[in-house]
Structure formats: structure tokens, C-alpha cells
């Protein structure tokens, strides 16, 4: 049995310790907002936060995540109203939407670390999150918009 703390709740799971966190979140806990895209840490669709840091859950084993604070898209904000989520809606970033949970989790981690990210910061933090619809221009603009909102609120 492994104890996981996901979105503020504790779960005891029976999955093998080397099972990727992604599949425990999706198949065991039913938290399907986190997506499978590549399985080799090459696309970022499975990005979640581990103690506030963006990680790829497809290559993070459930045992590595044990005891850490895990946040998924479902737990990023109470009402889908994180500054990043609001900016995403305002700028109509999503197209097919499949990669967007990962994009948003990566962007939220970036904003938590850098309140006023430069284009270079955004390139560095976000270039591993692939979007086949190529919504990148709006991803970049929405991150800047969210950062502005955050700074105003602060």
C-alpha cells in the first residue's frame, strides 16, 4: 500500500511501486484531467505538481510521489479560477484541449516561481509541452496576461 496525497486528499493505493503516477491518477483514482501523450516525458501532457514543482507523471513512479504533495489540474484551483485558467479562457487558448491540462500546470508552476516571466523564461519552462494544434502564441500571451493579473492582485 502506498499513500498518496492528491489535491489535498489522502489515498491508499495498491498499485505496484514502479507504476507511473500518471496511470495511478487516471486508472486507479479516476483523475482523468491529466493526460497520456507519449509515455516517455517527451510531450508534457501528463504534467502535474509534486510539492509545487512541475513534473512529468508518465515517468514519475508512484513510489517517488509517495508522501509528496501532488496537485493535478482538478486541484489547481477550487473553481477553475486560477489566474492561469482565467487567462486561458480570456484568450481562448485551447483548441482540441488534450494537452491543455499539462500546459496549464506547467504555466502555473512557472508563475509560482517567476512573477514576471520573460519570453526566455517562458521558452525554457514551456517548450517541453507539446501542442499539435500549435496554440503556442496564445499560451505565451496568456502566461503574460496571468502574470499581469497576479502582480495587480499582489
Amino acid at each position, binding site marked *: 500500500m502506498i499513500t498518496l496525497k492528491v489535491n489535498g486528499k489522502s489515498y491508499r493505493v495498491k*498499485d*505496484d511501486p514502479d*507504476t*507511473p503516477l500518471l*496511470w495511478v491518477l*487516471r*486508472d*486507479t483514482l*479516476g*483523475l*482523468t*484531467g*491529466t*493526460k*497520456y*501523450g*507519449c*509515455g*516517455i516525458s*517527451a*510531450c508534457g*501532457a501528463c504534467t502535474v505538481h509534486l510539492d509545487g514543482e512541475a513534473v512529468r507523471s508518465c515517468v514519475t513512479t508512484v513510489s517517488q510521489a509517495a508522501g509528496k504533495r501532488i496537485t*493535478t*489540474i*482538478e486541484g*489547481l484551483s477550487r473553481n*477553475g479560477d486560477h489566474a492561469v*485558467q482565467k487567462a*486561458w*479562457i480570456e484568450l*481562448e*487558448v*485551447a*483548441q*482540441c*484541449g*488534450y*494537452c*491543455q*491540462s499539462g500546459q*496549464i500546470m506547467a504555466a502555473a508552476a512557472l508563475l509560482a516561481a517567476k512573477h514576471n516571466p520573460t519570453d526566455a523564461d*517562458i*521558452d525554457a519552462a*514551456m*517548450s*517541453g*509541452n*507539446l*501542442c*499539435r*494544434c*500549435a*496554440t*503556442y*502564441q*496564445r*499560451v*505565451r500571451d496568456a502566461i503574460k496576461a496571468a502574470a499581469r493579473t497576479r502582480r495587480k492582485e499582489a
Partner: protein
Amino acid sequence: METKVNAGRRDFLRAGAAVGGGLLIEMVLPGAGRLAEAAAAPFEPNAFVRIGADNTVTVIAKHLEMGQGTYTGLATLVAEELDAAWSQVRVEGAPADAKRYNNLLWGPTQGTGGSTAIANSFEQMRKAGATARAMLVAAAAGQWKVKPESLSVAEGMVRHKASGRKATFGVLAAKAARLPVPADVTLKDPKDFVYIGKSFPRKDSRAKVNGTAIFTQDVKLPGMLTAVVAHPPRFGARVKSFDGAAAKRVKGVTDVVEIPFGVAVLAGDFWSAKRGRDALTVEWEESTAFKLGTDEIVAQFRDLAKTPGLFARKDGDADKALEGAARKLEAEFVFPYLAHAAMEPLNCVIRLSAGGCEVWNGEQFQTVDQANLARVLGLKPEQVKLNMLFAGGSFGRRANPQSDYLMEAAHIVKAIGGRAPVKLVWTREDDMQAGYYRPLFHHTLRAGLDEKGNILAWHHRLVGQSIMAGTPFESGLVKDGIDFTSVEGAANLPYAIPNLTVDLHSPRLPVPVQWWRSVGSTHTAFSTETFLDELAHGAGREPVEFRRGLLAKHPRHLGVLELAAAMANWDKPLPAGKAGERRGRGIAVHESFHSFVAEVAEVTVREDGSFSVDRVVCAVDCGIAVNPDIIRAQMEGGIGFGLAAALHGEITLKEGRVEQSNFHDYPILRLNEMPRVEVHIVPSAAAPTGVGEPGVPPVAPAVANALFAATGKRVRRLPIRAGDLKGA
């Protein structure tokens, strides 16, 4: 001026009382067969508009939402004529029923593709909204004992100005449901549009930012098993034998079954099924398999290109005119196989029940999938129930004429006797290696100029596999041996050239090929627009001015060309780069799916030949712009998709095996490679045409032309290699 639409003959409408006294309106074709049933059972989601007593307006979308914004577009059309409030409108996917939900541009076939969703629905969905509005008005008029003409509707409220009375749609729905359906409805004059032409928020945005949007990958049914399939390593190979003992020992694995496409391992969850497949041993029968590599295929195509093909177009005598030309130019182009690589790998869920089967899928090709599934399961097509979910991208892939991955799932659920629902999941590696692909193409272009630099002759020869051959669409879309999708964008070249020949070879190979976002134009736009740029240069003419002179009879091409050039400040020099950097600007214009797009690309090339695409200015003419922001998004995305192919995209074969397997060796565009994109929409009163695909074709040739401007080197093969640009 008002547009009068007769809804009487071809379509006719009925209404019935829906749940909670709601109003249900449906459009059906005469003889649709289930009229009586539908009238008695109005709860079926078989209509375009449903209005609940709770005041929600549900728009039933017959097209797949795969990112292109069609749910929002279709809802916009209904809301416009219904005068609904945007906040009360929701959208749900239609069931499979070609009688009511067929694509009007595809005859009796339901499906999404070819950038047709808004084009074929523009009148149909507005009529559905207008009819509902007329009935709500009639209900209010009856209740208030006033003339319908004295009522107005706005923002979901029916009002009688003189008395100050008003009622919501929800309040009127039950009464409206009992009224006769008007045979004719009057559609709005475009000057009165409230929604069309404005950018109302997408209906799917919220669910897509909070993790609640349900894709096929997210479906979980009671008792469901997940299947992962070991596919043959080469096209045309089959299972000789397999040993599933080790796979069955993996915890969670329930079944290992052979199907015509390979061996499936089933488990209660994905990871167990995947580990089961890793433990599986399969011996493949490869004597009949395809074992050529990309280099050999290209060599074969190059040989074929030396011989005449079948004519797709023949104006004048290009060969003769070429002989007499003062200057001749020739170029050879090679385009690789490309994978669609949508972010959601292929998947579907299937459940057998007594007398039918039910499927959950990013469903793009209902009529074809119903027929294929029915055949393999021994059912009638109407016994195959298809639930259309959001697709995590498709780019054409989920509309497969053979229903390939759906057929896999059907064979698997059959092999386990239908005892559990099955979710088939292709891993990224399956998605990349098991087909289907944009076909590999070889083009040869020859042209002749006279002394003044006028184009006398143009000869375009294409060699590539037919997408339509061997599909149910061959009879309709392959005429006299010419697959229209092989030559679209080449055979309809708009430039005024007196002697013009386009011919085609369509060699048959076992590599599975399929339409890929913008189809033939993915390669024809590149060869024609870079070669035309080369001719302009050869004639000593400026590329925009040169095109202008050849497009006199094509005002919409000309319109986007002029707009893109103006917005990109084409007539002013491009700002210089830093020391050691060369900058260049290029333009391309192309029509696809009846929309016209021109793009100007600006590039910076470094000394080692590596380069960046800094900015793309795009002009689009797609007729009436239903939702301008979605059009901009589709152009931005199309440009990013086209750039991925220009910069990276390449599926290669070695001894028949696909060499790429995942995003590390089949890279797609990344955020740091995305240029700034500016989109300008040509104002138009023409009927709307598609925007999902037409943004793709011009970007690669615009970039190649920009690279030529910067380096003096021509790009003849995709993807563009830094080595091809080095040190000029």
C-alpha cells in the same frame, strides 16, 4: 432584403413535446423511416435544437469537435436566428444517423472533414434556429392574444412592447412544442446579425481548462478492460504464432487474443495491459511484408517521373512551348510520409449488447464506421450506436475509410465473446508506427519563359500513392485514374499560363496512406509556390508583382495576396539582422477547400544554416467570418502545423520498418519555434467556407521563399535541413 428559405420540400420539420414540456425540433428527410417513432419518443437526441423548461438551449452538433471550434460555430448559427442568449446555449454531439445528420456536401454520409462543417451547416443550422424562434413567438402570441408581428425576440426573451409582457424560452417551450411547424422561415438580413461576425466565447473552453472535458481516453465503463495491441513490425506482415504465457502472468492481465491485425493483451488498466504486451512473444510471418526503405521508394518514384502519367490538366501544348522557350527551368521536389500525431493517441471504447454495439470515440466518420463495424460484428449499421466525444486532435486521422482502429477494437471485443466493454489504447509508438500517413510524393516541375519573362509553359508531374484507391470513395473521387486529392492545388493552378500540363502517376504500395490536414495541398502548394517564386526570380520580377500579373481572373487569390503583402509592409525593406545573420521574406498564396490564404514569412538564418521563422502575416478569405477569433486561431494553428512539417516532419522506412516511434524522433513544433502570427480576414458577404485546413498550405512555401531571399538557396525537399542552407 430578406432571405426567404423554403424548408418545405427537401427538409421538413416536426415538433413534439420533450422532457419537462420542452420543445424539440428536428429536420428530417422525407421517408426517413422513423418518423412515427420519433414523434412518440421525443426524448431521443435526434434534433438540432432542444429547448428545456429550464431555459437551456441545447444545440445538437452533427460535427466532431477536434479543436477547430465547430461546436461554437454551429451554436453561433442557431443562436443567431433563434435570438438566444449566448449564456443559455449549450452544445452536445449528435448520434450517428446519416438520415438527419449527414454532411450536406457529402450526400448520404455523416462525417467531419474537408473543412466543410460550417460551409454545409450554414443554412441548415440557421433554419433550425429560425424555426424554433418562429414557434416560440407563435406560442407567446397565442398566450397573450396578440399578433406574432408585434413581438420581438432578443437575448433569449420574447417581448411584447405595447404591453410590456415578456417570457423566456423556457416558459414558452411547452406551448411551442404543441404548435405546427412552419413550412417556411425567414432568415435574417446579414446586417442584423448579432452573433455572426462577432467572436463569442468558445463553448468548450471552460471544460478544457479545468480537466473536466471528456475525451475517449477518459471513458471508463463498469467492468471495462483496456486493450493494447502488438502490431506487425512491417506493413503486410501477419501473426505466425505467439506465446502469451508470460503476458498472462503479468498482474492484471485477463486475456491475450489474436486478431487479424496482431495480438491484443487485455487488462483491467492500461499499465498492466502495456506490461503484458511487453512480456508477449510474437513470431511474425513476413514473407508477404513490404520491405523497401524510403530511399528505394524515392528512387522508384523518380524513375516513374521520367515517363508520362495520366493527365489531370492539359491546356495548350506545354512540351512544344517549352521547346521554343528562351529560358527553361526545372526542379525536383520530394515530400516524405508524415504522421498525424495528434496529442491524443488513437483509442476507442466498444461494448457489445444484445442486438447491437455501442462505441465511444472521437467520432469523425459515422456512416463509414457504422458500416465497417456492422460488417465485422454481424449487425445492421443502425445497431451500431456511436457516441461522439471530443477528439484530442485528429488532422484527418480519425476519419479512416477502413475504420482501422475501430475494427481492431471490434475484433478484440468479439474475441473475448463480448463479456466486457473494451477500451483500445494505441500507445504513442503504435500511433506513429502502425500507419496511416500523408503519402510520400515526388514532383517534377518544368517551365519556360519568353524573352520578356512571361511564362509560356508549365509542366507539373506528380508521383505518389492515391489516398482514395481501394476505399469506398474510389468510384466517386478517382476519375479517369486521377485521384483528385493527389493533384488538388496543382491541377487547379490559378495562374494565367497558356500551355499548362499536370500529369500524375499513382503507384500502389502497401504503406497505408490517408488524408492529412489540407491533403494534396500539403505538397502541391509547396512545389507550385516555390517554383513560381523561382520563375519570378528567373524573369527578374518581384514575386508579388509577378503573381499579380498572373491572377487577373482570380480576384479572391489577389485579394489575400494584396492584403498579406500590405500588412507585412512588403514594399518596405525587412529590418536587418544581427552580425552574421541573414534575413529574408517570402510569400505564398493558395486556395484550398474553397478558402483563400496568403502568408508572408520572415526568417533569420544563422551562419551554420540554422534558422528561425520570426513572423508570419496571414490573410484569409473564407467568406462570411462566423467567428473571427476562431478563424484567427485556426490560421495560427494551421501555420504551426504546417511549420512542423516544414521544419521537422518525416516518417522514414528502413527495410519496411518505420524508423520513428515517438516525439523524440518525430518532433513536432515547439513553443520556442512558434513565430508571431498576425491574421487579417478579408471582409466578405460570400457563403462561408472552411478554416480548419487552409491555413496550412502556404506557410512552408512562404518560409522556403524567405530562405531563398536570405540565402539564395532553393529548398527542394522537406523537411528543410540546415545543411541545405549552409554557407551560401
